[in-house]
């Protein structure tokens, strides 16, 4: 079984969707945003084949080009970005008190609590804008992450005082990683 999130980029930039692919003795079932999809695939090779969709047989071919999945389906080109294969747990990269957040198995929703500012995307940290002792307000920039060839400013959705900064420039982060820890009396608005 495997799961993750993808987003259609071409021809239409779409919403991200969560997928789950379950293989059993009777075949493969795909769930998109938890809804089962009726689709049978017959492969010619790992990269091409046919699918049965709504009573028709549609040819398809796929290729990974860089970190994009290119899909040709029934005469139409689609390009998808894989956002995250969420089999990993939410975790801290470094903690000042020697402890760490207890790992949780399985599907991990991104939940923010008032003491953690977490990353909503995967990429590499370009710069860090805060240090321990700084006061942050909602909307303040915490760091800048490069992902999908663009720079993304990660902003705080909580207010408080920085207790620990878990990232340094050049470091890779993943969705769900805790970037910054705030003092215990912090509060979200």
């Amino acid at each position, binding site marked *: 079984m495997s799961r993750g999130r993808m987003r259609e980029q*071409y021809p239409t930039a779409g919403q991200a969707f969560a997928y789950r692919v379950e293989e059993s003795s009777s075949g493969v079932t795909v769930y*998109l945003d938890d809804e089962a*999809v009726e689709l049978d695939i017959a492969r010619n090779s790992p990269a*091409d084949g046919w*699918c049965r969709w709504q009573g028709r047989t*549609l040819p398809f*071919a*796929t290729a990974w080009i860089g970190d994009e999945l290119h899909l040709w389906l029934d005469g139409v080109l*689609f390009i998808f970005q894989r956002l995250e294969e969420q089999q990993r747990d939410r975790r801290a990269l470094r903690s000042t008190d020697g402890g760490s957040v207890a790992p949780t198995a399985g599907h991990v929703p991104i939940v923010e609590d008032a003491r953690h500012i977490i990353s909503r995307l995967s990429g590499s940290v370009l710069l860090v804008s805060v240090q321990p002792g700084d006061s942050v307000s909602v909307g303040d920039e915490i760091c800048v992450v490069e992902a999908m060839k663009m720079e993304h400013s990660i902003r705080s959705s909580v207010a408080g005082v920085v207790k620990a900064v878990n990232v340094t420039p050049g470091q890779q982060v993943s969705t769900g990683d805790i970037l910054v820890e705030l003092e215990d009396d912090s509060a979200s608005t």
Partner: protein
Amino acid sequence: MFTKVLVANRGEIAVRVQQTLHVMGILTVSVYSDVDAAAPHVAMSDEAYPLNGNTAEETYLDIDKLLTIARTNGAQAIHPGYGFLSENPRFAQACQEADIVFVGPSPNSMEIMGDKIRSKELAKSVGVPVVPSSPVCDSANPELESFAKDAGFPLLVKAAAGGGGRGMRLVTEPEQLSRAMDAASREAQAAFGDGRVFLERYIPSPRHIEFQVLADSQGHVIHMLERECSIQRRHQKIIEETPSPALTPALRQRMGEAAVAVARAAEYVNAGTVEFLLDPDGTFYFLEMNARIQVEHPITEAVTGVDLVEWQLRIAAGERLTLNQDEIQPNGHAVECRIYAEDPYNDFLPSTGTLRHWQPPSGPGLRLDSGFVVGQDVSTFYDPMLAKLVAWGPDRSRSLRRMEEALRRFAVLGVVTNIPFMREIVAHSAFRDGSYDTRFIEEHPELLQPARAVELSRAAQAIASQAGNRGSVAAPVQGDASDADHRSPWHLAGHWRLP
């Protein structure tokens, strides 16, 4: 007949010309720029010589390099293809002086036809109606104003040495005229090395109908019927068909006779195309003559059964044209789509990349002319045309249905193509009923919506999710770019499938 011919071109036309040369038992010589070293037109040739460079000027436009290669290696003739030097009188002249046969018309007829004003004068002189136009002028010329007043607005500014829609501007208001002329002139200077422009009356919803002509050196001139090329985007043809749904037999005969008259008046020899604009009211006007083989020639070959390149070579070798006008009747219907590496959903921006998957369709009535194979890079050095797909059918309806299905099955990954856009056009009711003109694409903006992608979105997501599990593609298969040897005979067998 020649025993060795140099093809002074690249890409699909160089492949296509060599296919006929090989059928005729003639040895082929190819030339290539640095980036084209591994291209199919090179790999298939009997002899290949580098041009050492990458810009067009350093390579396919370099007359001295081409003639040196031809002379040194014993090529008796040069086929210029289309574009590049195919309509360059200096090149044709230089070939003559070097005692090498140029497969095409004489330098003189090329010069006349290359000059949009002179060619119209010639047409008028044999009683063929022409689109009213001004003499060549610049924005300071006083004659300009009187022409503009007579012709009225909107009118077109066109390049005297031009083609393919470049150096062309539509002017709707008198105030815009001067600036439009300057802009057109700059564009023409950059594209053709000749910034001269002229004005032409604008015919609002014309159909573009052209006639293929063939003429031998003994004065025998015939036409090979028409091609309708009204599906254009920014004045570039993208879909062509024959016969034209707009022509009655009577109109076909009159226009055909006019085309032959123009070619004869220019003492034209070899293959050429006479272009007309057809007004909705049934009046036709001579526009220009193209003194070369054209991109869309395959549809004429499909309905007449004639190999035009073969006749070009035979005429160039001095043979008599043994086809008679009354033998030229269309058999069935053919349509061609030009497949480009362009993104129809992003203003047709060119797309570059490596062809990771390239699986053209096959089946009854299909022909593919292409200069690309799987694994090849599509770069910005040259025109982004990947291939020409032709579908012949016993009637128009079947040829269009075959084309639609062929477009559906044409799998390309690695670059974005205009294939889904072509399919929307071919399936469109206004195209299907034959009632379209050169404004078709403008008038149907719905063509630019990725409607099919929206319908298939869920299925696409479900398939993509499974590809997401597997990471990168493992085993190489034919038609897959991970096949290590791009030069293997499997990939170089040529892409011309006879109907």
